[in-house]
């Protein structure tokens, strides 16, 4: 594990509170993720895992009512979603959205170039981008024919998840939050997701896996596991925590 010399975490969440339609879902959540780490957040349905992922990415479904979240020391909560992406945050969606009429490949290039431009980097032309996209498609075993369709248009559940990992691989975020990326996936697809996450393992990046099942963790070994219940993280530990959950279920963590 490598840390920044000054010890600043890549992601630091303190006392985060958020509500949906006036109902508090996150109730003072703390989480620290350092560069180079892979974390898993586990917990029963309704514990607030997806709300946490959405709030960090800037989804306006939940209103933040308290606390802070910083990425590399920058106040995440003050940024619109696109600027969080530019800052290096990536959310892998539990339910990727179908957008007919917007080409997959065009979307991905638009996204990459929007981020590069905002960071003052040179934009990729169509040819260079295609080279990059092809390389990453191989990594996630994505049929290139899918790239000519609309975004996620007519994709199966597994293909949508592969597309999320493809986007992550092309955008190379500092922090990837993958929300239930394993739901509905067969073993082959899980392997592909794991490969995508592994490809991005580096001393200056981090990944947060949000998952209900420990099955994913047979393919991706996290450095830290957190158990979430009722809007807070109630246990944190190493990989042994996942096995404990597997044996005992979530009942013992319920408040």
């Amino acid at each position, binding site marked *: 594990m490598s840390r920044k010399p000054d010890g600043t975490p890549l992601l630091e969440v303190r006392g985060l509170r958020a509500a949906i339609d006036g109902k508090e879902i996150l109730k003072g959540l703390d989480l620290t993720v350092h560069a180079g780490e892979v974390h898993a957040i586990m917990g029963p349905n309704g514990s607030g895992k997806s709300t946490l992922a959405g709030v960090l990415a*800037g989804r306006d479904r939940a209103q933040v009512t308290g606390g802070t979240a910083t990425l590399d020391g920058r106040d995440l909560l003050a940024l619109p979603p*696109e600027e969080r*992406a530019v800052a290096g945050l990536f*959310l892998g969606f539990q339910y990727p959205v179908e*957008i007919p009429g*917007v080409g997959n490949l065009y979307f*991905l290039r638009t996204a990459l170039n929007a981020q590069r431009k905002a960071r003052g980097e040179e934009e990729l032309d169509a040819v260079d981008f295609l080279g990059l996209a092809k390389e990453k498609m191989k990594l996630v075993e994505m049929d290139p024919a899918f790239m000519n369709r609309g975004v996620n248009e007519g994709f199966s559940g597994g293909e949508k998840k592969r597309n999320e990992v493809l986007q992550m691989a092309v955008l190379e975020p500092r922090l990837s939050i993958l929300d239930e990326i394993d739901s509905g996936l067969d073993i082959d697809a899980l392997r592909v997701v794991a490969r995508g996450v592994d490809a991005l393992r580096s001393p200056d990046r981090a990944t947060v896996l949000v998952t209900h099942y420990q099955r994913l963790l047979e393919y991706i070994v996290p450095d830290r596991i957190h158990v979430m219940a009722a809007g807070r993280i109630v246990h944190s530990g190493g990989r042994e925590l996942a096995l404990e959950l597997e044996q005992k279920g979530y009942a013992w963590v319920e408040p």
Partner: protein
Amino acid sequence: MGGTLKAAEQSLLGGQEALAPAPEFVASARRAGRASFERSGLPTTREEDWRFTSLAPLAAHAFGPADPAEPVDADELDRAAGRPFGPRLVVVNGRFRGDLSTAHGMPGGVHAASLQHAVAATPARVEGRLGRVLAAEGRPFAALNAAFLGDGAFVHVGPDARGGAVELVFVTTGRRAPVAVHPRVLLVADPGGQAAVVETYVALGDHPVLTNAVTEAWLGDGARIDHYQVQDQPGTAFHLATVAVEQGKGATLSTHSTALGAALSRSEVLVRLAGEGAEAHLSGLYMADGQRVVDNHSVIEHAVPQGTSREAFKGILDGASRGVFAGRIRVLEGAAKTDAHQLNSNLLLSRDAVVDTMPQLEIYTDDVKAGHGGTVGELDRDALFYLRSRGVAADAARALLIYAFAREMVERVRVPALRDRLGRLVASRLPGGTAILEAA
């Protein structure tokens, strides 16, 4: 200060005396049109067909007759209407202009000329059709158009015509005062003839103009006609277009309208499937913002068995604009095995934008498949967030989604140069402009 409806009607009838002398069948159509308009006057919102479209803004202007000899230079024309992509007939203020037109590349078997010329030179080809497809009675704007019947375009698609496109450009100029013009198109397709006809309506000058166009089309047995109308006028313009079509046995019509500009734009498409096995495809895209009004009326009449009609219109409404869609499908007694479907989808981009959508099915026979559907919605918030979460700025993400909605209607266009032009015209109205066209 706005005038009264009566004053507006009087001023609209002015200038008839300046019309060129015409053969009796044209002169009598003029008299009948004038008499009909004098009886009906301009429609008001008390009439069912005009319930949602007030003509008060139109009646506020005294539209006078336009000068058909108005100088228009070719560059100015190309800027407004795009460069020609083939043979192009230009009609300025209702009169055919040879100086601006080119017949170069006319598709084989297709003949296109000034209507006035056709009336004088080949009256036999015109007389049985002109004013016969569209009954002006009860349609005040068609009646007003008939009162000024004289020129416009005549397109004859011979039996050997096998495709290719002719473009008709209608220019209305309001350089010195508000003017009204009433161009007419007569399209006759012989049995088996195939062609595409593109009508483009533009306006020049700073004064409000009223363009009141009528297109009559007659499709012989087995003819295949692709018909397009593009309305791209300044926000001060008023545009009324009536398209009336009668189809013979097995004839296939596709008529597609794109309404992009004007303060008030109304399209009426009236199709009669008069021969068995005829097929009609009606589609269109309308976009409005500000205080603009855009109205699409259609009536499809299945008069005989085994007709098919498909209707799909999409609207994009921003600001405090108003959209109207009224689609009537009439299946007459005896028109068994009719298959009719209608779809109207609307995207509202602001809280103040309004759309009224009214499907009307009138079915007088059994053994019919008829249906309609439609949506009125805002941009998909989940899709918007998805795009933004990948780093696409809010404005650009909105533009991508709006274009994605419109795209289907652009891609229906089968004349490649027109499809490209419409793609650019639609995209240029979105934040980020034409860069979005790569989204394909």
